[in-house]
């Protein structure tokens, strides 16, 4: 390994030309051109008394490149590929670039730094490709075009990293180190071992009308930190696709902070936040493992595909902001679903409670029908909240419980059934619609009330319904009819 000094002003850097290379600082030219093991230095002794241009040509390689202390303007030019096996350090002044070739950072050892000091290194591609290599930024890194991380580790090290094209993570660690990586699109769809260390940083994607984020294959991908991906295109053109198939432990949060275009995908993700988005989101089967925040301005396309709250542990928070969900919703896994405001579902859609706790948190969940027929551990925590049911209620099987005070209101104007499954409900059951409310199962309630008159409530024959209070109340001429489900056979109410 040697140190090579550029001398003599303008010239060509390639694999063989010796004119501008010296083995001593400010010495005579004619030294052998640098190899991948040699450091190269450009400094105040590199010029010939005036500005100079270094043209990168075929075969240009070096270990470290250090440009420092220039007293004339130096221009890096050319379009040939250039491989840097060490670190790069550019000065804050006197260096300009017209170079457009592809740069490969090819270190195979750790501890390399890249300090561009405001100089865009190339408008060609930047490729990080060194097995065992690692590069930390020493200042912000900004370029037009693409960045490909093929092998090795990239650390933003406290600085912004920006490219106007795609960032492709093929293998290695991408350490955002609490900072922002901005790119048009992001892709990492393969089976190589790779990871993103988010910390509190994020990936900001500015592109539109294409696959914005592609991790269709996520084998051997992992992350640490708070995994935020933000999409901030603010126009209305085309479709932004997020093509992902995360398992829960891999899933990232997506924020769509702007735009009135169309969104497709987002099918297996951690959280989704559409605040600021006013376009449309397709109806697809979505497994969401994190928080959901919708925007009233967004159009959530109606359809038969489920939105699943699928966290197996911890809490998921739902914030609807007034959005009415015209598709099925399922509480799908063992985690807790907490409503931050009302969850409003179209009256033709069903809410399915498969597993886990639903915490109404004092809010209203309105649905076309309630379905929960299995033996999984399921719980509803009312906390003063209410479930408005436009159709029927069906709970069966074991391991279903409720906690806290609240209301289940059966609001259909047609006949409807509350199939309680023989459970003890800590809430009030309300007859909230003109149609007959037929209750099945040996249930218990805090109360049975009504908010419409006249109304009919049919209790199960030969069955005791336990109540803490019994508050059905008619008015003159608008009576409440209380019946047994089988004529001539008693239904029993037991006030406990």
């Amino acid at each position: 390994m040697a140190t090579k000094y550029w001398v003599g002003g303008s010239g060509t850097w390639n694999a063989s030309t010796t004119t501008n290379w010296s083995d001593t600082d400010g010495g005579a030219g004619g030294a052998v051109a640098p190899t991948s093991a040699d450091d190269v230095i450009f400094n105040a002794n590199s010029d010939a008394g005036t500005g100079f241009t270094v043209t990168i040509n075929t075969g240009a390689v070096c270990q470290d490149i250090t440009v420092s202390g220039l007293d004339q303007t130096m221009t890096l030019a050319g379009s040939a590929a250039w491989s840097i096996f060490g670190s790069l350090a550019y000065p804050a002044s006197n260096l300009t670039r017209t170079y457009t070739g592809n740069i490969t950072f090819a270190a195979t050892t750790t501890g390399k730094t890249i300090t561009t000091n405001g100089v865009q290194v190339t408008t060609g591609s930047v490729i990080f490709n060194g097995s065992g290599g690692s590069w930390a930024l020493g200042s912000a890194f900004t370029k037009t075009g693409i960045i490909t991380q093929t092998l090795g580790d990239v650390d933003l090290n406290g600085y912004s990293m920006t490219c106007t094209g795609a960032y492709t993570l093929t293998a290695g660690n991408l350490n955002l180190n609490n900072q922002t990586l901005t790119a048009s699109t992001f892709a990492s769809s393969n089976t190589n071992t790779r990871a993103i260390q988010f910390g509190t940083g994020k990936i900001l994607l500015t592109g539109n009308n294409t696959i914005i984020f592609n991790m269709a294959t996520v084998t051997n991908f992992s992350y640490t930190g708070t995994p935020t991906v933000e999409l901030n295109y603010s126009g209305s053109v085309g479709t932004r696709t997020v093509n992902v198939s995360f398992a829960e432990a891999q899933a990232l949060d997506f924020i769509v902070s702007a735009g009135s275009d169309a969104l497709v995908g987002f099918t297996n993700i951690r959280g989704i936040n559409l605040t600021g988005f006013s376009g449309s989101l397709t109806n697809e089967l979505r497994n969401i493992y994190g928080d959901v925040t919708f925007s009233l301005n967004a159009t959530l396309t109606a359809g038969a595909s489920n939105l699943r709250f699928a966290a197996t542990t911890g809490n998921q928070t739902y914030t609807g902001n007034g959005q009415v969900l015209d598709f099925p919703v399922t509480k799908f896994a063992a985690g807790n679903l907490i409503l931050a405001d009302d969850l409003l579902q179209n009256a033709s859609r069903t809410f399915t409670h498969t597993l886990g706790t639903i915490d109404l948190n004092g809010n209203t969940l309105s649905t076309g029908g309630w379905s929960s027929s299995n033996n999984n551990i399921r719980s509803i925590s009312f906390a003063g909240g209410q479930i408005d049911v436009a159709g029927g209620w069906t709970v069966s099987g074991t391991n279903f419980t409720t906690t806290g005070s609240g209301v289940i209101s059966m609001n259909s104007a047609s006949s409807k059934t509350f199939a309680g499954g023989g459970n003890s409900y800590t809430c009030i059951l309300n007859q909230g619609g003109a149609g007959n409310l037929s209750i099945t199962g040996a249930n218990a309630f805090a109360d049975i009330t009504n908010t419409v008159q006249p109304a009919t409530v049919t209790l199960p024959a030969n069955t005791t319904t336990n109540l803490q209070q019994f508050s059905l109340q008619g008015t003159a001429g608008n009576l409440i009819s209380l019946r047994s489900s089988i004529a001539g056979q008693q239904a029993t109410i037991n006030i406990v």
Partner: protein
Amino acid sequence: MTINFEITQDGYTLKDAIVLTDNHTFTNAEIEAMKQKRFDDWYVIVTAPQEEIEVSNGD
């Protein structure tokens, strides 16, 4: 010497550094102007309309 700085505008934040030799002769005003130019140049790039993009799988 390394002068770290951060500038935010319209929700875009640049975190950058001006790295100077210890014997530099830049005045404070020149350094401040350098910071602003860095941000302005970056802001143009980060907010530029997108080109048509070819998407790879990353494999």
